[in-house]
């Protein structure tokens, strides 16, 4: 790429750099940079409230646990389109894959802040594999799935760069990559829940069950579908001019279809959650403080959006569906935080409970901002919401 082309992409002479968006991003980046320096010169204690009772905090609970669940739109959308023959949702695949790719990339990036010796992150796979650990499975699957997502996303980047040959080779792998992606997602989405199966004495009995792995996997499906709806409605608002006719034509059908799908899966999820309580005979715990909190999660953030999705897709009420998707996304975040932080060490007195440090919150916002900026850059320059004119009808 020539220098002028680079300049054209990054610095538009026709537009001022001092937009409110750029200023906000600049401030967050600056704070993030300072926090990064503090983390890598002062250790974890300089920017986190982690302690010996709470070795995992916001970065694992939100950035990793919730982040991975919300990035599930990648495998759900591509599986629906390529494996289950729902071709009419084709135009949603690229935005979903991009969101997933950026999501996973940021998960791995924020892990570098959280682990003590990030340069050893390849150790479990290449140097000293501890195969009895569920974290080994999570690590292996996330590493492989990030590669798969990168390849799936790369066709868009290669079209943008004009590298036709390479693009066509990777494009031929679509089916294999999709199948591979679903296997890897099944495994690591569920293992993230299974991580806590080793700690029955620490996690509150309402959240601790042998079914944790199943719960995490099933909830990742409607998390993914909801995130595609949620992200799509935001994109509609801000990137409408980038969308081609096919995308716009297919979008409404996609929202209705995904809302219906999410509603069904959530209904099933509620059933298996109740089965979980029945299996362990934990009914009496529902009357306690944690029990009420459990019901808030299950009724307020699963049953309610499940109902709203059902009504919304029946009445073709798009604003209702959008609201339901937002509640579902928040509900997934709440569930992952409950398992990893809030209901974890539930017996500890309040003074010993973990409350995130401002530095942890700051770096989490930093990560999200990087994701938004990267997303914005990619959708403004690469064929995500539209088909590249050179590759029309290749699908």
């Amino acid at each position, binding site marked *: 790429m020539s220098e002028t082309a680079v300049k054209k992409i990054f610095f538009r002479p026709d537009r001022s750099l001092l937009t409110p968006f750029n200023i906000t991003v600049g401030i967050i980046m600056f704070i993030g940079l300072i926090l990064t320096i503090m983390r890598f010169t002062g250790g974890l204690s300089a920017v986190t409230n982690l302690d010996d009772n709470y070795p995992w905090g916001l970065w694992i609970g939100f950035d990793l646990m919730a982040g991975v669940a919300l990035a599930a739109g990648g495998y759900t959308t591509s599986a629906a389109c390529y494996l289950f023959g729902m071709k009419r949702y084709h135009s949603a695949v690229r935005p979903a894959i991009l969101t997933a790719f950026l999501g996973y990339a940021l998960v791995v990036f924020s892990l570098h802040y959280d682990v003590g*010796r990030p340069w050893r992150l390849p150790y479990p796979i290449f140097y000293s594999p501890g195969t009895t650990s569920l974290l080994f499975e999570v690590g292996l699957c996330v590493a492989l799935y990030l590669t798969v997502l990168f390849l799936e996303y790369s066709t868009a980047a290669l079209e943008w760069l004009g590298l036709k040959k390479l693009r066509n080779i990777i494009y031929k792998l679509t089916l294999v990559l999709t199948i591979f992606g679903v296997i890897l997602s099944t495994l690591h989405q569920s293992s993230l829940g299974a*991580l806590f199966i080793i700690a029955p004495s620490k996690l509150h009995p309402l959240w601790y069950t042998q079914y944790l792995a199943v719960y995490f996997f099933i909830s990742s499906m409607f998390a993914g579908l909801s995130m595609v709806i949620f992200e799509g409605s935001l994109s509609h608002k801000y990137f409408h001019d980038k969308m081609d006719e096919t995308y716009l034509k297919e979008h409404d059908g996609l929202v209705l279809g995904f809302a219906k799908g999410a509603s069904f899966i959530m209904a099933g999820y509620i059933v298996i959650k109740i089965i979980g309580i029945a299996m362990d005979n934990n009914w009496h715990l529902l009357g306690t403080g944690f029990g009420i909190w459990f019901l808030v999660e299950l009724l307020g953030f699963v049953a309610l959006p499940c109902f709203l999705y059902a009504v919304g897709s029946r009445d073709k009420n798009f604003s209702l569906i959008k609201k339901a998707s937002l509640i579902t996304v928040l509900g997934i975040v709440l569930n992952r935080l409950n398992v990893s932080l809030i209901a974890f060490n539930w017996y500890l007195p309040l003074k010993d409970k973990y409350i995130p440090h401002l530095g942890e919150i700051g770096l989490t916002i930093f990560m999200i901002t990087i994701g938004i900026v990267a997303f914005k850059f990619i959708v403004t320059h690469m064929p995500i919401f539209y088909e590249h004119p050179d590759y029309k009808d290749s699908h």
Partner: protein
Amino acid sequence: MSVSRRKFLAWMGGAGLSTAFGTKAYAASNKQFKGYPDTMGVLHDTTLCVGCRSCEDACNKVNNLPQPEKPFKELSVLDKTRRTDSKTFTVVNKYDNSKEPKNPVFRKIQCNHCLEPACASACFVNAFKKTKEGAVVYDASVCVGCRYCMVACPFNIPAYEYDKVLDPKVVKCTMCHPRLLEGKLPGCVEACPVEALTFGKREDLLKIARERIRKYPEKYVNHIYGENEMGGTSWLYLTGVAPEEIGMREDLGITPAPNLTSGALAVVPMVAGLWPVFLTGAYAISKRKEKIAAEEQAEAVSKAVAETNTAAEEKLAKALEKAAKEKEAAIQKEVKKALEEAAAKAQEEDKEEDA
């Protein structure tokens, strides 16, 4: 760059199989691992402990740990409940005695050195190892610092050096493994002035503990804490009050930690084996549906075309027939007309002749 499918499946299979056949965990079988033969341990008789903190002092010296803020002679430290941290491998806590309110109970806390350690089964780089001597040891040279061991430990023992930048370690009691190899006693056991700590073969310690309970049934609770908890630990406790009252959880169960996760791990090779088949099947079905739909569509079109054609031919034939009939009729009409004209002409000629 991507890893080949075969290699991936091998890894996945390995993850599951190692739980089935590994030496560490006897999961997925009904065998119970009772620990290495002749494994060593320590018996802590809490009814004898006087809370002098000599063990803490000895541990600090033996392991070259930094000096604490208050000296080990200072017993006011006991008023607060403490836990192990990165600078302390062991602590003694004071608890109210429900039996004799005047005599508080003291209990020493350190790594219990499980027979099947949760930390070892949770570690994704094998940094923890149960030695045949009984100690669970940690290898900092492979540790990534993920702290999953701390999440996994049911006794809340491993601590972490949160303030270290380049070489943070997980820290816990080593049962003085290096000293054991030299034939010495663990530092704390050696230092205990009242023999509240007894070092020996775990089997022998269990016998001693049972004997004490038999001899003094009114002094001890009939329970050797650590005999079965989480599958058994190398450290064993005798108590005069319920273990729960002196901060030891009684709801841990007797399942060794590796058995808890073996089910989830056993599913891995199944998913890796079956999903490709199911998904390719789903793809084939949807492809076949598309193909059938396309064929049906083509058939319907050709049928429609054929129907239209026959209809058109029939119409044409009818039209032709009609045209032919009309033509014939016209000819007959013309012939008739011509005949009539001829007849009329002949009549006229006859008239002329008559005239």
